[in-house]
């Protein structure tokens, strides 16, 4: 199962837009902040490109809770209001506390001897809980939809990793070319030349990549 190319192109566009909006030309940002902003824009781009799924809503809700909203607003633009509506975020399965307490009591009151099936079930339960923590928005899902969302999320993560790697490769290749094309022995060229050369190299490389793929 692979992500569609349309998804990837939308993803990439969004990501580049996000990079731009986060003010990357500003080099005074420290490395962790830059890394954080890149990751944020990549995640948002992934969620936006994927569309409406439970994990995308969960992801955006999680991000909007953690981050400063201004950046998100910039990236998402008009969709910000729609996507961060509170009814989508933190959908927990509402359970009555007394019922929960009662069920816990009767479960832990009489401990049956550990049978293979109950042991296996508890193993599966713990792992499902871990998975719920990993997949954004997983807390509100039951077993079946959790697997479904995990599948989708894994596909999108793979696409994200792929895209970022290609992007990185493109940047570095263009840098290499820029450097090898350097006329003088000095390290730094003028920024304008670099950017033009980089842009051209990037386009070339992307065409090359798309031919290869």
């Amino acid at each position, binding site marked *: 199962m692979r992500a569609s190319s349309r998804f990837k192109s939308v993803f990439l566009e969004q990501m580049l837009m996000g990079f731009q909006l986060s003010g990357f030309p500003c080099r005074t940002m420290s490395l962790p902040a830059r890394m954080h902003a890149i990751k944020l824009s990549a995640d948002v781009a992934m969620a936006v490109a994927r569309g409406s799924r439970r994990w995308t809503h969960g992801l955006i809700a999680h991000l909007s809770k953690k981050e400063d909203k201004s950046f998100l607003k910039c990236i998402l633009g008009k969709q910000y209001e729609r996507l961060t509506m509170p009814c989508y975020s933190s959908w927990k399965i509402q359970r009555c506390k007394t019922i929960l307490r009662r069920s816990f009591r009767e479960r832990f009151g009489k401990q049956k001897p550990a049978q293979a099936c109950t042991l296996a079930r508890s193993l599966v339960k713990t792992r499902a809980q871990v998975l719920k923590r*990993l997949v954004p928005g997983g807390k509100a899902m039951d077993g079946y939809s959790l697997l479904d969302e995990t599948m989708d999320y894994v596909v999108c993560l793979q696409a994200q990793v792929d895209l970022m790697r290609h992007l990185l490769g493109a940047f570095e290749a263009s840098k290499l070319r820029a450097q090898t094309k350097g006329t003088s022995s000095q390290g730094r060229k003028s920024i304008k030349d670099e950017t033009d050369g980089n842009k051209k190299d990037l386009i070339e490389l992307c065409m090359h990549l798309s031919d290869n793929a």
Partner: protein
Amino acid sequence: MNSGSSDRSPKCFLNQNWDRSVDHISQFGSALGSFMSPQSSFELERGLQRIGHLSEEVPPQSHFMDSSGNSQALGGLVIAGNLALAHLDQFPADPGFAERAARFSSFDGQSYGWFSGHFELPGSGKPSTAAIIQSLTASGLQIGHLESNRQIPVSNEQQLKMNSAGPAISREEMSLSDPISASNGKKRKAPSKSKEKDAASPKPSTDPPKVADEEDSDTKRCRSSGKIHEIGIDNVKPKLEQNDGARSNGNAEQKQRKAGNDKPSEPPKDYIHVRARRGQATDSHSLAERVRREKISQRMKLLQDLVPGCSKVTGKAVMLDEIINYVQSLQRQVEFLSMKLATVNPQLDFDNLANLRAKDLIQIGGPVPNSAYSPEMSMVSSYADVPQQKDILHSIATNAMDFHCSMNMLDSTGHQDLNAHQACLGGFGDSSSQLGFFWEDDLQNIVQMGIGQDQEIVASSHNFHGGTSPAAQMKIEL
């Protein structure tokens, strides 16, 4: 009944041969998988894995005792091969068996004739097999020519069969995948009534037999419409006992295909054809439970295809473990890549990048091209045949080396040689020295996160400078 007495002997055969047959099945499944298209192999493996799954959950003896006498008898027939054709008389009486046979056979009328064709009964079997062959070819099967090869060497030694008929089966399986789905769709529409999963209204006890009879006649009608006969799949005869499981699995799967992720209560025309297994409770709760379990197992199998290196894993817990590891490693990779992008970015102006048209970047995908990286990367990425699980850390290692390449480039105060990583690390300029060590610390952190998780696999990068980063020494273990 003589079947009762003769069933004793097959049971002990079953117990002995169960492990062997399961091994054969797994071999067979993997062999098939290499030949067949993913779709058809998926269907077959589903059945195979059902056996494995069932064998985990339930000890084989109890399973065979609980399930219908037919499956017992079938198992005995398959493995021992000693039962006379007289036993076959009782088969059509069981509607469940008829349905199972319907799934795997396609000729008119007699459901048991198929089985007779596959038993190595020296003399008695032959005339009926000839009749079967004729009927099969008459119904327009493509695999008719294979049957004559198949009939003679039918034996209890499944191993021989599997090895010899592996490639031959692949031809059949290719043709099977589509007709099966088509025929299953047909079978769904034909029976007018079905035991619905969400039968909230408790069905009277007389309904199941009535439904069974209807379904029996309906399945016979379906059979006559020419489903592909899985005569070549006599190698997976041990699977037949699990037909009911496979069938309801197939039903659940069809439900998936048609209804997507709909809730169990579906519009009346799209019913869930769930059959109660003989010897199991027939109330709606257990049926619902069973369908739910099968949905989950089906999803697990899809996930198995997604997560690399999980084809051999059975069981939910281990599978979930693998999924968790994979998701975590993907997330870590994203973090790592974003850090690398952060280091590369300062030299590039992103304003111009936004001008890149989307269609230039379409179809960016597929494997990471080696040409994008420096020649040293190709050394590491030439470890192409390592198992998938290690690829992730390898890629991280390549990224790590790449990272140092980029550091070198950024530092570009004359260190044009990409091999001079050590020199690069050692001889930083003023401005970049702090940044350099800072980057290295980040790299160490991220790498150690990766190392902490997968302890048996440690990736190494020989370009790390020994003095500055002792903690980041990693070794590639193949």
